[in-house]
């Protein structure tokens, strides 16, 4: 039973970390343009970031498993993200930006699993779904508020100010982290993995991937991102064109609306994750993606469909964001490889998202945007079917809320 203080600290940690991460999205391309970087150079910098993200997922997950003090990992990663933001703001030339991209990628790969691990340690396996639902709620609040604040900052102040603000927002995040009391973190899981040491990382990774449940679900994650990631970027420029003077408002709504939906429904999704409706909710969440793609195909004529499409985005984001860590925890309950599993799913997410934007861009150039949307919708249907099948084979039933997990000693 964790105290209110620790739980609230974790809540606000999620909020401020989401704040910080919002500044590092597509906005980097805008900022580098204002610093007279050529498009080719910007592309290279972003590609380096993507590669760094993918390469660091597995080692970061393994590292978080093995380090006892998860809070220290989160703090270190948070500081690294802040340093990265400062580098972007202060020294926007080639070597500094490359360093900042790599630093941010590695730090993000550590931060996600660290927060999930703290959540698991605080809530235990039985209460994990609810705790992650709360995480998602505060993270989406953070994303929504930051999108507005940073967007206004970028429009009315300067692009550089956005990164300074991002760096400053790490301070309240660290304060929130300090509110999580170390004594309340159940350390059984940490101790078991920490005894392994780094040399076993490769062996553990192979063992984890050999588990067909993990592999099946990783495949679902890839398919989900393959169908989901490129949807908004594909139609965003159409929306801007059609909306004219209201373009910024439309885009702001498109970004904030899904976050609002996640804020509202994620605790409910978290509760569902702990019960037998998990499979149904998961499939519905995945099925929202092809539906959204179909709506986007019609949005060029009816911009109001954008609102409905982005509501669906919120639904799928909430389901995905809450369910994935819960499933990772279930799959690794007896091997205590929770963070490594999160790393595997993180790698799958990054790979799927990258492939999505690449393929969608190619198809849109070669054929048409509608063809690309239909292709993504097809992937989405595949993803929903895959997750329906994969979750049917789910093994351990969720434990009742009041049963604590003890290590086999």
């Amino acid at each position, binding site marked *: 039973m964790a105290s209110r203080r620790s739980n609230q600290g974790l809540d606000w940690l999620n909020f401020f970390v989401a704040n910080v991460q*919002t500044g590092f*999205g*597509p*906005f*980097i*391309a*805008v900022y580098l*343009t*204002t*610093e*007279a*970087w*050529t*498009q080719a150079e910007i592309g290279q910098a972003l590609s380096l970031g993507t590669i760094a993200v993918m390469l660091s997922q597995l080692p970061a997950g393994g590292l978080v498993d093995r380090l006892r003090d998860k809070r220290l990992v989160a703090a270190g990663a948070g500081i690294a993200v802040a340093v990265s933001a400062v580098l972007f703001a202060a020294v926007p030339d080639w070597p500094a930006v490359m360093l900042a991209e790599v630093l941010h990628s590695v730090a993000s790969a550590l931060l996600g699993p660290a927060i999930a691990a703290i959540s698991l340690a605080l809530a235990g396996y039985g209460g994990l779904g609810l705790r992650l639902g709360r995480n998602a709620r505060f993270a989406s609040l953070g994303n929504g508020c930051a*999108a507005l604040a*940073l*967007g206004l900052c*970028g*429009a009315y102040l300067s692009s550089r100010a956005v990164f300074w603000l991002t760096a400053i927002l790490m301070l309240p995040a660290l304060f929130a982290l300090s509110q999580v009391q170390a004594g309340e973190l159940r350390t059984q899981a940490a101790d078991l993995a920490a005894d392994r040491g780094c040399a076993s990382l490769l062996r553990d990774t192979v063992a984890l991937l050999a588990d067909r449940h993990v592999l099946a679900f990783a495949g679902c994650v890839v398919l989900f991102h393959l169908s989901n990631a490129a949807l*908004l*970027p594909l139609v*965003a*420029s159409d*929306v*801007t*064109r059609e909306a*004219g*003077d209201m*373009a*910024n408002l*439309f*885009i*702001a709504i*498109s*970004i904030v609306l899904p976050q609002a939906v996640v804020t509202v429904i994620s605790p409910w999704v978290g509760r569902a994750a702990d019960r037998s409706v998990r499979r149904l909710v998961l499939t519905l969440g995945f099925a929202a993606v092809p539906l959204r793609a179909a709506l986007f195909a019609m949005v060029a004529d009816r911009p109001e469909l954008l609102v409905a499409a982005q509501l669906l985005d919120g639904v799928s984001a909430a389901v995905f964001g809450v369910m994935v860590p819960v499933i990772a925890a279930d799959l690794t309950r007896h091997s205590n490889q929770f963070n490594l599993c999160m790393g595997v799913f993180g790698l799958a997410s990054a790979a799927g998202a990258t492939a999505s934007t690449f393929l969608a861009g190619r198809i849109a*150039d070669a054929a048409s945007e509608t063809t690309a949307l239909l292709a993504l919708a097809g992937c989405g249907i595949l993803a929903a079917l895959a997750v329906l099948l994969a979750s049917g084979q789910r093994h351990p039933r969720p434990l009742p809320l009041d049963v604590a997990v003890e290590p086999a000693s």
Partner: protein
Amino acid sequence: MSLFHISASRVRLFPVTILLFAMALPHVPARAQEPAQAVPHPPAASAATQETMARGEATGTLGRVVIGPDAKVVGRIIEVLVDQAGEPRAAVLDVGGFLGVGSRRVAVAWRALHFNPSPDGQGRIVLDMTANQIRATPEYKAADKPVTVAAPPQAGPAHP
């Protein structure tokens, strides 16, 4: 360090400086002669001559803000397209978008851009069209595909 040490190094530099000075002198009259004679270039290329642009004369293009006739921001220049003769025909602008999402790339005619440099080199770049007017232009993809360039509407006799 002793005084002797410092002066010794200076003495060593002295002949070098004289040599450099001697080499520099012939460059001054050479620039004046350039238009009159056609000097055949030796296979080993000689050093480039230098021209200057006065302070306030030059305006950078990449990443610079372009404003419309209503003084509202249209976008930023991300690329300059030149034709076969090397003349700039269009500038590609990054238009619109919020926090990096939803921006489009539109090519606008070079002749519609006006560069007004200022003494600090940060001149204003003004486009003859507003963001709304270039809204319907198809997006710019790449230089090796046919490019649709937005040009100012013809000011002809009013059509019914």
